[in-house]
């Protein structure tokens, strides 16, 4: 049930997916890994859309060099934990949802427990080793993984339904080298917003998800395109997984 305030708040989007869709958003728990460049727009848009429970994890402190893109954090937050800054902003954006901000480094020992029974994992990480870990948990628990990555003016995004679509390792078997990557804030803005859009579509069963499609954004050309991606039967992460007939968005 929604309060009068919630009915007003979500009025314009309930024109799209009804009170039933809004109810699905409210019941959902989304796990966002990172409160940085991608995590900022993802969490802001999911918070204002009314995702009932958002867990956002990060281990870092806000640094001056983050502020060109990590729009959750303000100048006054420099030196503060990103999780504290994120929790404050997201809760102010929407007081009717639950924000769990956890100051932790996700690793093999804690990933399964941290993710728990989340309805979706948003990949807002900045490195592939952790992404592969998220991929493993997504596969083990059959939780959708909303992937995004950026560099400079370029970005990529895809939605992974374990057992149905290619997993992250099918698409990117080998990680690109680690680097201090160049980036302008609009790029994670665009890709993070696409990830949030995928989450909302998944939960409300709207439209077509980026399933088996890798969206590629070229901000220099202002050109988006997609390449089809397929499961790798010999994939080390999801190779043995049988196809499960699931309809994305249809919640049990």
């Amino acid at each position, binding site marked *: 049930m929604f309060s009068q305030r919630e009915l007003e708040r979500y009025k314009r989007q309930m024109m799209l997916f009804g009170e039933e869709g809004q109810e699905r958003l409210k019941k959902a728990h989304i796990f966002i890994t*990172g409160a*940085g*460049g*991608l*995590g900022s727009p993802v969490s802001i848009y999911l918070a204002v859309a009314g995702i009932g429970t958002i867990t956002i994890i990060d281990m870092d402190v806000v640094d001056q060099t983050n502020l060109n893109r990590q729009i959750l954090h303000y100048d006054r937050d420099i030196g503060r934990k990103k999780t504290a800054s994120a929790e404050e902003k997201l809760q102010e954006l929407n007081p009717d949802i639950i924000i769990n901000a956890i100051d932790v480094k996700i690793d093999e020992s804690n990933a399964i427990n941290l993710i728990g029974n989340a309805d979706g994992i948003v*990949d*807002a*990480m*900045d*490195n*592939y080793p952790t992404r592969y870990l998220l991929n493993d948990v997504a596969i083990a628990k059959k939780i959708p993984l909303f992937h*995004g*990555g*950026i*560099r*400079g003016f*370029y*970005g*990529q995004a895809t939605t992974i339904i374990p057992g149905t679509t290619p997993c992250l390792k099918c*698409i*990117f078997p*080998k*990680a*690109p*080298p*680690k*680097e201090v*990557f160049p*980036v302008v804030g609009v790029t*994670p803005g665009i890709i993070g917003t696409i990830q949030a859009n995928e989450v909302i579509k998944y939960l409300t069963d709207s439209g077509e998800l980026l399933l088996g499609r890798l969206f*590629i954004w*070229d901000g*220099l050309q202002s050109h988006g395109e997609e*390449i*089809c*991606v*397929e499961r*790798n039967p010999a994939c080390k992460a999801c190779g043995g997984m049988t196809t499960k007939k699931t309809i994305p968005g249809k919640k049990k």
Partner: protein
Amino acid sequence: MWWYDNKKNNTGEEEVTVKIRFFARFRELLGTDIVTDVAPGTMFTSLITTVAKKNPEGYAAIFDETGAFHEFVILMRNGKRIDIADADKTVIADGDEIAVFPPVAGG
């Protein structure tokens, strides 16, 4: 036919026409939608090596010092993945559209 003659190279073999699409940083360094004619039997690795060599920086972005693809490079032919380990024994076919793509890691 006019196009048939055009597609013969100087040894009289019929050449195959392919299109190479580079993405992201590869595109900045090497351009994209490169249409080129190659001799029949040309392998993927050899074609991309030739095209990439036009810019040393572009070449270094795609290949390592030994001339092998960097292991993270994604190769697609007509929307289907080609394993980089197989690229030096995969023959290009007429009309192939080849995509060469670097995954991005930032967040």
